[in-house]
């Protein structure tokens, strides 16, 4: 007699079991159908808001682009050097929201930017590269809204230098103006020969979670301003009079995506104050070669207000319930009727049997999830486009975009892991009712309870229970330099999409290990 039949035989055996009960097949096929229908429902009833601006960056993404810029043209290669003497953030949090103590917490979410900018004109959304000091985040070389290179952990006072060589922009930092450290180099494609260069200041809005009555949470926003002092701005090659560090030849503008039509020129140089946007900062102030600049706003990618892919995949919850029910019954029905004895008499390697079962239900759930996700997104995309979800606020996407692929494959993986978890729990409890109720409670209850609990407890409840897995459906990119609050109220469980999958994967592995151990140990 040849050796034990291979694991493949066991898989075939369990596959035959799963597909030969008609009710289970119907329930399994219902999973993608429910997912698609729910997705269509969500898409049909959704509408985009009307955003304040639709300024797009060089790559077509929606961006913020507001800062105070003192600049002059630079033609061809050259470099600009300046000393940042100081940079101070002003931020007020009302007493009702926690006052000064809360202000220090909010400060940490603010990437105030003080430094040197090289930009393709003053049009909001235009190409740029900039080296800057960001309190709490050191020296950064940022470009075209999404690029961000971390340099030394220095703060003001410090020397900064930006050098253009063709399309390559290099950034340097120095503590004494003599010994320079390279921060990095970026390539900005399609830069014209003449660009605007000079000191700039941007000061984004701070955000905080504020707890209101009855435990409801709200994201509060606090505008900030940053006052920076620059010394001895020096442009090489010297272009015209006053380039050695005087008000002459430097122009003072606020770039503001929210106030200016995309193609309109900035306010004329030295325009009277009443011609500036009303909410603009006070004009730049020169004292010899000392420049004091106050800035508002931010230069950063803007996240889409809705995650269209995640919303379209909402129906996965409905599909999940059908899969959980079949996964549990797949094992508990054998215990209920004593068929498990037939199974274990035919295959005495009980751990192998359980793992074969898990593999079969997991693979089935994965395939169903892939089909459900892909079909849902293919069907909802044209509906959403018709409803006015358009670039740049809502970038168009296709199934083959990496983030969309991740959302679809990740959804399938979450279904698979949850199915394995449900199966293992069924093997541990040996009762369908108990196992189904436990899994459903773990999926549904955290969503309901989180609101009633204190915010931190609520967040961890959601982070540590299976629904966290659905964070793989997030497709709106997150950037370190544009921090967003991550809280259940805005649908965020983890910043990292796969972190949530890791949670459900741990559930699946731990419960399978427990089930294998128990099944081997117990009488069948």
């Amino acid at each position, binding site marked *: 007699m040849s050796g034990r039949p291979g694991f493949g035989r066991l898989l075939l055996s369990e596959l035959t079991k799963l597909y*030969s009960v008609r009710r289970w097949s119907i329930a399994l096929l219902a999973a993608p159908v429910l997912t698609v229908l729910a997705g269509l429902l969500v898409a049909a009833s959704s509408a985009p808001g009307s955003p304040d601006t639709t300024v797009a960056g060089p790559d077509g993404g929606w961006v913020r682009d507001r800062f105070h810029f003192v600049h002059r043209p630079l033609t061809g290669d050259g470099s600009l050097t300046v000393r940042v003497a100081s940079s101070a953030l002003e931020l007020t949090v009302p007493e009702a929201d926690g006052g000064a103590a809360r202000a220090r917490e909010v400060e940490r979410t603010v990437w105030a930017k003080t430094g040197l900018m090289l930009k393709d004109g003053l049009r909001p959304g235009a190409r740029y590269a900039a080296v800057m000091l960001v309190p709490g985040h050191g020296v950064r070389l940022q470009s075209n809204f999404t690029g961000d290179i971390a340099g030394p952990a220095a703060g003001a006072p410090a020397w900064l230098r930006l050098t253009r060589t063709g399309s390559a922009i290099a950034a340097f930092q120095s503590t004494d103006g003599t010994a320079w450290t390279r921060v990095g180099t970026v390539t900005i494609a399609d830069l014209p020969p003449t660009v605007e260069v000079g000191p700039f200041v941007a000061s984004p809005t701070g955000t905080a979670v504020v707890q209101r009555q009855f435990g409801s949470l709200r994201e509060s926003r606090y505008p900030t301003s940053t006052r920076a002092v620059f010394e001895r701005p020096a442009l090489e090659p010297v272009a015209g009079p006053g380039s050695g560090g005087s008000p002459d030849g430097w122009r003072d503008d606020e770039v503001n995506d929210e106030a200016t039509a995309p193609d309109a020129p900035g306010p004329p140089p030295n325009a009277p104050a009443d011609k500036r946007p009303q909410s603009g900062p006070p004009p730049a102030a020169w004292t010899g070669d000392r420049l004091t600049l106050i800035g508002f706003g931010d230069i950063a990618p803007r996240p889409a207000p809705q995650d269209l892919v995640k919303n379209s995949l909402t129906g996965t919850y409905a599909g999940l319930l059908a899969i959980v029910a079949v996964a549990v019954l797949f094992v508990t029905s054998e215990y209920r009727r004593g068929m498990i004895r037939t199974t274990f008499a035919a295959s005495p390697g009980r751990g192998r049997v359980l793992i074969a079962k898990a593999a079969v239900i997991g693979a089935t759930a994965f395939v169903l999830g892939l089909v459900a996700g892909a079909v849902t997104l293919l069907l909802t995309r044209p509906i959403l486009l018709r409803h006015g979800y358009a670039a740049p606020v809502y970038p168009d996407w296709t199934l083959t975009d990496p983030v969309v692929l991740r959302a679809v494959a990740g959804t399938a993986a979450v279904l698979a892991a949850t199915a394995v978890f449900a199966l293992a729990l069924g093997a541990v409890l040996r009762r369908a009712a108990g196992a189904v109720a436990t899994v459903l409670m773990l999926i549904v209850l955290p969503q309901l309870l989180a609101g009633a609990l204190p915010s931190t407890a609520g967040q961890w409840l959601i982070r540590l229970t299976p629904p966290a897995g659905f964070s793989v459906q997030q497709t709106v990119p997150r950037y370190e330099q544009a921090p967003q609050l991550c809280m259940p109220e805005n649908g965020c469980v983890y910043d990292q999409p796969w972190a949530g999958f890791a949670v459900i994967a741990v559930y699946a592995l731990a419960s399978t290990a427990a089930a294998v151990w128990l099944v081997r140990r117990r009488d069948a």
Partner: protein
Amino acid sequence: MAESPARRSGVPIEVRGLRKRYRSTPAVDDLSFTVEPGKVTGFVGPNGAGKSTTMRIILGLDAPDAGTALVGGRPYRTLERPLRTVGALLDASAVHPGRSARNHLRWLAHSNAIPRRRVDEVLDLAGLASVGRRAVGGFSLGMRQRLGIAAALLGDPAVVIFDEPVNGLDLEGIQWIRGLLRSLAGDGRAVLVSSHLMSELQDSADHLLVIGRGRLLADTSVRDLVATASGDRVAVRTGMRVEAMTTLAGAGAPTAITDDETVTVSGLPVERVVDLLTRGGVSFTGVSAHRATLEEAYMELTRDAVEFSSGDDGRPGR
């Protein structure tokens, strides 16, 4: 059917010093026996005697507290393709009602790398060929028993274990089972079949294991069991009971007064009783011989072991 190596290797079933308790109730208590090839071995005992427990231990499903159970010289759980060595029917209703008989046999065949054609062969053998594609939920208990037997024979095993296979079968089914048991033993297979009723086994079993309260009460052939029972009795109808008793007791046979007119004597053939009474001058109106049945022998053996009025093996929730 192909000759399987297990048929030639060692003792088909060998149980030694088996003990098993469920909580405080001993289900099997120091049980030892062997099952021989080419014979039908009946495994009888009242409900709750430990028959099913013993079978589950042999099949590696329950772990004994002490002792060993070997199949073809090996513990069941070390068998590589167990269905090709041992076929078992434990519980005919242990099938999913939504699955067809054919699919039930197919997953079993896959798990032990048994060729697909065996599925149709055993369906045919069990008389289920015409209903193979129907869901088992619509089967009668008798049809389920046949399906369980088909499943047991799927791997053409050298050892066959049936737990109460006659339950729920009609007369025709019972006849079929008896013929099947005989033919399986005739192929040289070892057949262990349990029942709580001796009458179900007396025509088909060659050998008997009688079990009560988890202990082995008899391990014997059918003929010997009848002989070791209280033996043959002769009832004498007479008006002279005291004289009859004296005369018969003088011959060394145990006697008893059964009623006003009857004296019963054990261990003496009818001819000898008539001879003794005639010689002793005891008049009698009638003599009748009473031969002990297997059933009576069994009842006598298990009289003290009947413990549970219901339930099969003392294990709750079976």
